[in-house]
């Protein structure tokens, strides 16, 4: 485990649940907030995040850092991210190993990189500068991808592990993304997970995807697939008690549905590690009727 707290099982903080979260405690251990959704000057979202932060650990998860772009680092964005982190004191700050635009444009998608030594050097150098600007370690997530580059000289897992070591950053292992990319690029998902350095993996993501026949899409609009649960159990056995988060962004269901999905993650976690994950797990177990 890296130098981060063992948080347990969390869910993403989504607008649909704002009202309910102001009224009751959710049966989860922590929340992940999309950084850009709170980079505003004021208003209800920031108020809700403040209230949530009072009751739960929170991590900030960005989608626009664009660590792999060849554009200069966006200093305005970094300043906003730093201010957000100073205000809400997240347990960690994460983003994606990807690029989102170039020439000052933002395509608002998580685009893959060629896995080459040139790109590794480029990204590692930028991670170092981002970590200096934020004054904290960055956590980077593997993305789902639908294309790969013929001039790659490394596998994605070799690249990610090498980047974490070279840039001294941590890893957010998205198990669903591993599954989706493994299908789309015809590689063995277990090889990816087995190559992750346990001491660098700070967090796991789980989410749903959709099957389009020729490819899988990382849609975050469905329950976690059965095969991804199996892969998650494998990851926990390999990597230890890694804090885990359920993502659901499209057709966001009621909070109870998210809590049920988190509960399933808790059960898998317990089946691997023989103990409840996180404070909500303990509280929930204590209040459950005897079988």
């Amino acid at each position, binding site marked *: 485990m890296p130098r981060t707290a063992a948080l347990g099982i969390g869910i993403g903080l989504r607008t649909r649940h704002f009202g309910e979260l102001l009224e009751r405690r959710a049966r989860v251990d922590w929340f992940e907030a999309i950084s850009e959704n709170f980079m505003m000057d*004021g208003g*209800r979202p920031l*108020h809700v995040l403040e209230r949530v932060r009072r009751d739960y650990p929170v991590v900030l998860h960005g989608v626009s850092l664009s660590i792999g772009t*060849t554009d200069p680092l966006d200093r305005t964005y970094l300043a906003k991210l730093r201010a957000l982190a100073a205000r809400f004191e997240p347990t960690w700050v994460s983003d994606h190993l990807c690029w989102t635009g170039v020439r000052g*444009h933002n395509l*608002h998608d998580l*685009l893959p990189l060629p896995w080459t030594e040139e790109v590794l050097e480029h990204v590692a150098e930028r991670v170092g500068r981002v970590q200096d600007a934020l004054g904290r370690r960055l956590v980077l997530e593997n993305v789902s991808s639908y*294309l790969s580059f*013929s001039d790659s000289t490394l596998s994605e897992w070799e690249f990610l592990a090498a980047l974490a070591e070279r840039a001294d950053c941590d890893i957010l292992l998205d198990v669903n993304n591993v599954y989706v990319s493994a299908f789309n690029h015809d590689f063995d998902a277990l090889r990816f997970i087995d190559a992750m350095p346990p001491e660098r993996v700070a967090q796991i993501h789980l989410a749903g995807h959709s099957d389009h026949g020729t490819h899988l*899409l990382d849609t975050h609009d469905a329950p976690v697939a059965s095969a991804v649960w199996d892969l998650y159990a494998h990851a926990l056995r390999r990597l230890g008690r890694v804090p885990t988060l359920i993502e659901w962004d499209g057709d966001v269901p009621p909070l109870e549905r998210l809590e049920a999905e988190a509960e399933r993650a808790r059960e898998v976690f317990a089946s691997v590690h023989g103990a409840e994950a996180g404070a909500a797990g303990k509280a929930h177990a204590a209040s459950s009727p005897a079988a």
Partner: protein
Amino acid sequence: MPRAPRLRELQHELETLLSLGGDPDCEQRLGRAAPSLPIRSDHRLDGAARLAIYAEMIFIRIRDAVTEDFPATRAAIESTTGSDAWEPLLRAYLRVHPTSDPDLRRAGRDLPAYLRAACTGPAAWIGDVAELEWALVRAFEAADAVPLAVADLEALPPEDWPALRLRAVPSLLLLEHAVPADTIHRRLVDGEPLPDPNEAGCRLRVWRQGFTVYQRRIEPIEQAALARVLHGTDFASLCEWLAERVPEGEASQTALRLLQSWLADELLAVEVREA
């Protein structure tokens, strides 16, 4: 010499291609470009098809974000130009104003200005509707402020009133339209028939009270007075300014009436003094 020159060149090419999402000739252009790019193909998908997955998702994501903020504008475009006119309009808009902000919610930032230029003649009112909708978005996420309360003023000694600084809350926006933009907006959202386009225009104030965004029609005198508040003024200066514009002897009464309304709607903020 830029770092990672090969990556830079690749990203420039991809950015151009992936911005084609939604264009009628997207598929053909990706098909022509893909063979020269280092993209792996397999028996399921060739390079062009893989690029197309991204191009389509990128356009849909941005389209959905803009559409969410401009429901009435969309309805206006569809009612005047055709039920399938919204996507082509957004494609044309994005060609002129590609998204640059890290925040996807700002993708529609330039749409009002774009529509002002694109929709002229009898359709010019569509730009007004878009401007109103964007003002509602801006007010929603404007900085918080502690509203000035009646009790704050009651606690003020009479001799301090003239120098009282009037400061607007950051969410306050003033709009002026040649058409009844507020009525048109409401009817478009509700799916009701539009008013007579020759109906008189309107002056609006848009603001956030608590977490709710409001809009209200205002008279020219209130609009001008609020514009002065937005630029920074004190109570005495506002009264003097009003005295030159309202019938003799009504300046104080008008100032008081406006002040009461602004306090009730929480348009004024407590002045934060630097320590």
